[in-house]
């Protein structure tokens, strides 16, 4: 029982199944990742010279979300293995 692994996350884990993936918080993470990636590229293309140093603000969130995406994919694949 800590803030990262709590009764709530354990309840999420108990309810998790590959066929329920579409309704899970994992999909929210993937959606946020997609939104931020697209937004970052749009901003970079529109204001390349001015916003370039600020785009690191996106990387601060995108990098851990990318790692989370990789882990989500890996754990789901493991779930699906016979």
């Amino acid at each position, binding site marked *: *029982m*800590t*803030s*990262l*692994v*709590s*009764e*709530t*996350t*354990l*309840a*999420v*884990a*108990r309810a*998790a199944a590959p066929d329920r993936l579409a*309704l*899970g*918080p*994992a999909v*929210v*993470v993937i*959606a*946020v990742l997609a*939104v*931020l990636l697209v*937004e970052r590229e749009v*901003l970079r293309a529109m204001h390349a*010279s*001015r*916003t*370039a*140093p*600020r*785009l*690191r*603000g*996106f*990387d*601060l*969130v995108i*990098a*851990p*979300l990318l*790692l*989370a995406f990789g*882990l*989500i994919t890996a*754990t789901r694949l493991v779930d699906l293995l016979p």
Partner: protein
Amino acid sequence: MLALTVYGLLIVVAEAVVVLVGPLAGALVHAGLLVALVNHAVLAPEASEPPTAPAPPPARVASALALVPLLRLVSLALATKDPGPYAYVVVGGPLLVAIVLGARTLGVRGLFPRKGVAREALAGLAGLPLGLGAFLLLDPPAFARDPSAPEVAAVAAAVFLVGGVLEELVFRGILLRILSEIAPRGALAWTSLLFAASYLGSRSIAVVAVFAGLGLLFGWWAGRTGSILGVAVAHGLVAAGLVVVWPLVFS
């Protein structure tokens, strides 16, 4: 300042939504907050500002605050059926990346100064009685199902590092420091409020109250000494003792 206060309150609300409404609803609120905070951090600079200028304090606070919804999203998305070391290692990976990038982007340095290591070590050992006190008060279930020494050591190490040290890096290491730039008087209270709110997932008012108190204590010490070594060790010992060691000792 008003916008940042609203963000802080919305993070608390989002934590409550996770518990009271459901993890998916809570994850959606956290996701909206995360996108808003990142946009605030990136777009906050004035148009006339040179691109090489350091980010203004509100943008830095928004970046630091973004770590809290990120922490919750990752912990919900990577929830596993096994609450052992595997769960902590999986959640801790993205969190560690966020902390390293956050500290680098925000210019947070000197979290573990060499000066005063002995004092910090002694402060860290306070985590042993604090963890025992918290266990006697809260009586949580044990995480380690197999009471063999290797299993207990692995779970305790994972909880110490991820549940203790990484959380301290987020809350006292980055958040408290950055909030202090814009609100020196309110930073401790805000950090402790957000820290306590992150424990709402325990579904226990007693747990939230205990960690609110610990958050105030850790924040006071970290602010006084300028180091988070002591509070990181203390938090790790509290967490590992609370959910791994003390339940086995008293079972």
